[in-house]
């Protein structure tokens, strides 16, 4: 189904867009509203150990006490990244229409946000990679918590995320980890006993059946994890070079293929072991050939691994900001979040329904409970954050060399 591909394309494309210009490679020189003219503000690059409170960007939040607007809410989203049934329920509840247009890369989203002729009321699926640009460019508006009564259901560990302390501009949507998807009928679970099972991706025994996520940051980070290195936003050329060599070795040993189709390849059996996002496996059951049981699907992740989430933002020029808040809040209601998950396949970043709830509702096979993300995963996870332009170039050049064979 396209839903998974859209999600994957989202992360894949977004990873390449992160570069930020700035003094010493760590600060973004902010700009005037909607353009690139200079301003005095600057936004540090957020890191888990360096949380960032995003500054006021000159755009006012919507005033309190207003009724939701009527008419058509224009939503910009990845294809098939929200349940049509959930949207219909929202339309019925508010007596409005929701019109969804799509984007397929983080670049395209940024371009659409900068295009003043496009009318957008709400964006679903934005990530941290362009958040400083969105804020500094005056492209998004601060949120008004009064219109988000279900905010308390946001996953506790993401209620005040390091990239937007106090959730001033963003509300989390989905959350996922990076691990290994595998065929349990071919590779025994016991091989994934330790935290060092990344090494299985280098095993020539699986030659021809190994896959990696076609994403610069994910692939090079895999090389670092293999070496026991965990600075996932490093600007050290030596570390990036070492990771590059490890991935070269992996390709030579296994003829690994790079794509974003683990959710299809593992169920179909064209890949037996694949670096994958947890959401891949949560949606993979829909791709099993007839007669193949869901029990063949496995997902492993170490104690600490890459964790990511995306979020909603409201554009500065939204004509229906209250209604946009209403849809964000609607998706935080447990029943709606669960219904939406059943279609989208990526775990909602909410406290309820949590992992056990989704298993109890038969939406996740028990052996794939490892795909579910907990508060502990988020707190102890590694993050792939925005990089300075110079550092991004190091990663990009290394990845180009890897993919050039």
């Amino acid at each position, binding site marked *: 189904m396209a839903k998974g591909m859209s999600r994957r394309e989202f992360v894949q494309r977004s990873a390449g867009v992160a570069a930020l210009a700035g003094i010493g490679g760590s600060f973004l020189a902010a700009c005037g509203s909607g353009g690139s003219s200079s301003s005095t503000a600057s936004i540090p690059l957020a890191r888990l150990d360096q949380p960032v409170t995003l500054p006021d960007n000159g755009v006012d939040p919507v005033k309190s006490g207003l009724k939701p607007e009527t008419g058509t809410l224009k939503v910009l989203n990845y294809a098939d990244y929200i349940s049509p049934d959930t949207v219909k329920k929202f339309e019925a509840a508010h007596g409005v229409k929701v019109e969804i247009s799509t984007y397929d890369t983080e*670049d395209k989203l940024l371009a659409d946000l900068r295009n003043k002729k496009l009318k957008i009321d709400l964006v679903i699926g934005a990530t941290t990679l362009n958040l400083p640009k969105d804020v500094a460019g005056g492209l998004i508006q601060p949120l008004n918590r009064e219109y988000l009564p279900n905010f308390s259901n946001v996953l506790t560990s993401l209620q005040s995320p390091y990239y937007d302390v106090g959730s001033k501009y963003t509300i989390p949507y989905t959350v996922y980890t990076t691990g290994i998807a595998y065929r349990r009928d071919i590779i025994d679970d016991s091989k994934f006993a330790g935290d060092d099972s990344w090494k299985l991706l280098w095993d020539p025994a699986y030659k*021809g059946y190994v896959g990696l996520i076609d994403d610069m940051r994910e692939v090079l980070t895999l090389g670092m994890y293999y070496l026991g290195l965990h600075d996932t936003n490093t600007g050290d050329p030596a570390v990036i070079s070492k990771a590059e060599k490890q991935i070269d070795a992996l390709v030579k040993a296994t003829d690994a293929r790079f794509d974003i189709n683990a959710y299809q390849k593992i169920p179909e059996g*064209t890949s037996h072991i694949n670096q994958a996002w947890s959401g891949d496996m949560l949606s993979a059951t829909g791709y099993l050939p007839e007669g193949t049981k869901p029990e063949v699907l496995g997902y492993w992740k170490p104690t600490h691994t890459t964790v990511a989430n995306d979020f909603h933002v409201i554009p500065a020029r939204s004509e229906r900001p209250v209604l946009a808040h209403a849809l964000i809040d609607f998706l935080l209601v447990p029943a709606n979040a669960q219904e939406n998950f059943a279609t989208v396949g990526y775990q909602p970043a909410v406290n309820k329904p949590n992992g056990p709830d989704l298993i109890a509702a038969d939406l996740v096979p028990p052996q794939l409970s490892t795909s579910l993300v907990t508060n502990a995963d988020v707190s102890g996870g590694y993050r792939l954050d925005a990089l300075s332009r110079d550092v991004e170039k190091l990663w990009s050049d290394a990845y180009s060399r890897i*993919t050039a064979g």
Partner: protein
Amino acid sequence: MRRSERNRADPQALWAGLTVPGTLWLVVLFIVPFYAIAAIAFGGADPVFGSAVPKWNPLQWSFTAANEVVSEIIHGALRGVFLRTFSYVFISLALCFVIGYPVAYYLARHAKRSRTFLLVCLVLPFWMSYLMRMLAWVNLLNPSGGWAARALNAVGAPGFFKLIGLGNGGEVWFGQPITVVLGLVYGYIPFFILPLYASLDRIDPRFVEAARDLGAGARQAFRRVTLPLSVPGILAASVITALPMFGDYYTNTILSGSPRTEMVGNQIELFITRSQQPQKGAVLVLVLSALLLVLMWYYLVSTTRAQRQAS
């Protein structure tokens, strides 16, 4: 006297006028976009948003990205990508010739009542998206039961392709050079056959009859008459087929995804859509275009020479 001169000049003006739409088309859809690519390749990046900022004034052009790309093509990883791309395209063209020439020849010379039907069959694949046709091959080559994979493995194809350097000997076909080559052939062979058929169809059969009357056998008549006269058609078919092959990235992405089969088109796609270095992607486009211009120049010289010989 003056009137007759004007009467002679008017048709020339008419013909010149008729070229205006084509010229405008060329300017608007080729020259301007091509200059835009150059403006991006030698331009800069927005300091805040990171997007490419074209520089239209050549005096302001920066050649940093161009130098990096050229250096990588000469000494670095991109050299292998270019060599691989050229070898894949030339092997694919050779296979297109071997498979396509007999088909085009049969259509032009021997298909009588079935000609229209066969031509429709040739055009039929165009009715379906190229992407869909490639995705169909993903199923056919599936190691868990794809019948094409089973058939290839049953006849010992992995060993043969390893022997000629186009495979790794394994029975998983995804990620092997031969899979990409066969994908290119499958995807583009109609582009090869149709112009070649048109060229063969235009050859006056009396030339062959004259050769036979003068004592040439069927093979000799083909070798001495038909084949030389079809050279312009072969070259035209090769150009029409090779140009999209050089820039192709779908085929490799869908049928392989392996760094070991990466083509120039894949690197262009990587730089433009998935990195913060669109300038490098634009430079690669220019470099590839320059190399293709050389091939086009060879094509033009060859066809001109062939026409002279024919006349």
